[in-house]
């Protein structure tokens, strides 16, 4: 492994019912994905406030991914539809602010899709790594 290889910081919000369980399944099946992905558990993808994503970028995250139940499968019947609409707006605004849209993503991962979870994370990390560090929104005052 190269010593200076850039490892992007990735925050992954996972809904408790599908995607978090999908991530657990990836673990059960020992499906590797980069260690720079850190998961935050939320009850539903619709709990993710755009503020959280902005906060992540402010604090130096290089990419943020949201995982929820597949459309129609939401534990709370319609939460992921809210997510889809809200994030479409947020991501286009972020793009306007100069955060490449490749740094953000919404993905539907069911509790059975461990393989999809790991594949998605591998691919997303690669994609973000290719863009390099997020400098646009990072607040240097927060850096220690």
């Amino acid at each position: 492994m190269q010593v200076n290889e850039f490892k992007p910081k990735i925050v992954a919000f996972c809904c408790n019912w599908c995607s978090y369980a999908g991530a657990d399944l990836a673990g059960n099946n020992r499906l590797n994905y980069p260690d720079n992905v850190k998961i935050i558990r939320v009850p539903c993808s619709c709990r993710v406030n755009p503020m959280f994503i902005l906060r992540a970028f402010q604090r130096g995250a290089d990419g943020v991914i949201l995982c929820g139940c597949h459309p129609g499968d939401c534990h709370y019947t319609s939460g992921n539809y809210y997510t889809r609409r809200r994030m479409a707006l947020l991501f286009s605004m972020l793009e306007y602010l100069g955060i490449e849209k490749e740094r953000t993503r919404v993905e539907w991962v069911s509790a059975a899709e461990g393989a999809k979870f790991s594949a998605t994370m591998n691919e997303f990390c690669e994609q973000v790594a290719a863009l390099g560090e997020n400098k646009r929104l990072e607040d240097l005052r927060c850096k220690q």
Partner: protein
Amino acid sequence: MQRIGVFVCWCGSNIAATVDVKAVAEALKSEPGVVFSTDYQYMCSQAGQDLIKEAIKEHKLTGLVICSCSPRMHENTFRKVAADSGINPYMVEIANIREQCSWVHKDKAIGTEKAIILARAAVAKVHLNTPLTPGESEVTKRALVIGGGIAGIQTALDIADAGYKVDIVETKPTIGGKMAQLDKTFPTLDCAACILTPKMVEVAQNENVRIFSYSEVTEVGGFVGNFTVKIKKKARYVKEDVCTGCGLCTEKCPMKKVPNDFNLGMNNKGAIYIPFAQAVPKVATIDPNYCNMLKNGKCGLCAKVCTAGAIDYTQKDEIIEEKYGAIVAATGYNPISLDKFDEFAYNQSKDVITSLEFERLTNAAGPTNGVLLRPSDLKHPKTIVFVQCVGSRCSADASKGKEYCSKICCMYTAKHAMLTRDKYPDTDVYVFYIDVRTPGKNFDEFYRRAVEEYGVHYIKGMVGKVIPEGDKLIVQGSDLLDNKQLKIEADLVVLAAAIEPDKSARNLATMLTASMDTNDFFTEAHPKLRPVESPTAGIFLSGTCQGPKDIPETVSQAGAAASKVIGLLAKDKLKGNPCVAHSDELMCNGCSSCERVCPYKAITYVDKEFRMPDRTTKVRRVAFVNEAVCQGCGACTVACPSGAMDLKGFKSKQIMAEVDAICK
């Protein structure tokens, strides 16, 4: 400031092999607020649990971070440990360093580094945790079953047998539903009335059951365990408790031209009627649209002949309000309207009928007393063609019909064909089919009997057009296996119309906040694992209102719904999920955004008096979350523009603290 203890589990070698657990415990010691940090081989074992309990006592811990397997495995275990030691169980956070760390990363240095970060995020969250207590609510020990067909009857009987009170609300003057209209039932061919009517009597006589016939639900409020329901008892102009069901009035009523809906309009009844001989309750009902007395005050014959004095022309609709702990939807189905399928000439010939009409034509209590005579000229039909899949399995963009398979048609068509050949061996019977679907116990054997023993002609293909010509019906269809277009001269054509949920279901779903699919079938909480519960707590599903099914399936689902209801009613109190939404009244601006996105209607608005700094008071409209109804998805927290709405256990501050810790 919290006093936090960190407990790093090895999980044998599951974690310890790729994460340096000692290093993690050590690193966490320097985190602010952490007063104790250790590692152990199996934290979930009894010894591990004792270790945690000891530490809580010794170090006066107020919050715990367990670095172990997924919270989906052992969160409850560790919450219980906390509770046993006098800490609120919601002061525990799990850092998932097994599934999300040791199992997916091979390099020990990397694994250790990530485990430390995950643990730090958990510590950051615990700092902001507050003790949470699940709300408790009482359970009203009475269930409501909406719909009095076989599904509703079975559910009610099973609930009543367990000793709970149950009410059935049925819109028709009698319970019994579709099954009461059927002749025989597949695959055993017992007569529907013989097996259904004893159940109707049983349910009527059960002291735990009340039947509100000729009634409908008009309003539903409350939540699981505590529903308040308004039921409209429509005026039947007959005193239910006085009428003896002798039927004299129905014979004497001079108005004879009322289409008999029980026989699907194939004959007439009086303006005062009892739907059928075994009706429950067996009391007469007056149809106000036809009764001369009610329309223009001229007649009154039924009141004169009624020796019991049961007729009451002044009766009014009555609203009953009742409390329930659980509600079961059992609203059933209807055949679809065939107006859009007139290539089969249903609207153009009386001798083109639906399968349900065929049931009535062969039923001994039907318009022809069970003799198979065709409606136009009451002659015995010599050639009968059955057409399957009429309006089922249509493509969504075909602008007519339903996309789903109606499931019961293959079997009842085989039944009709077989019974016809059995009773009238001189009749030729043809069945046009696309596929014959018979997945059920003894179902395929039944269908094969129709073919092999009864000589029913099954033709693979579909009918393109039915041409009424003279007193015949020319059925033009394709025989795909013979590669021919057939023209069969038939006397009677029977269409297996698709079934659809009863029209009342949509309105009811809105009242119950129970979700429906695009076809207006109620959706289940989980298609495999929670098939009889709606996603809304306290609402259960029974029978065809959830999807097409036959009688055996309906009865088993009815029993399953009943057992779920019994499980709920057996509890004295319901413990809620404490991780629910909460609105800060001082910040709420009353905009209703949260109310609109809530899938459970858990949020209402109330006018509340506030003291202002200048000692005046002001009434403001603020959001109020019903904690018993809220399921804790958090949709409202994001919709709230003022930041008043937050989710307990997943507060914005907590999640942002995790974000900060991860990005550090």
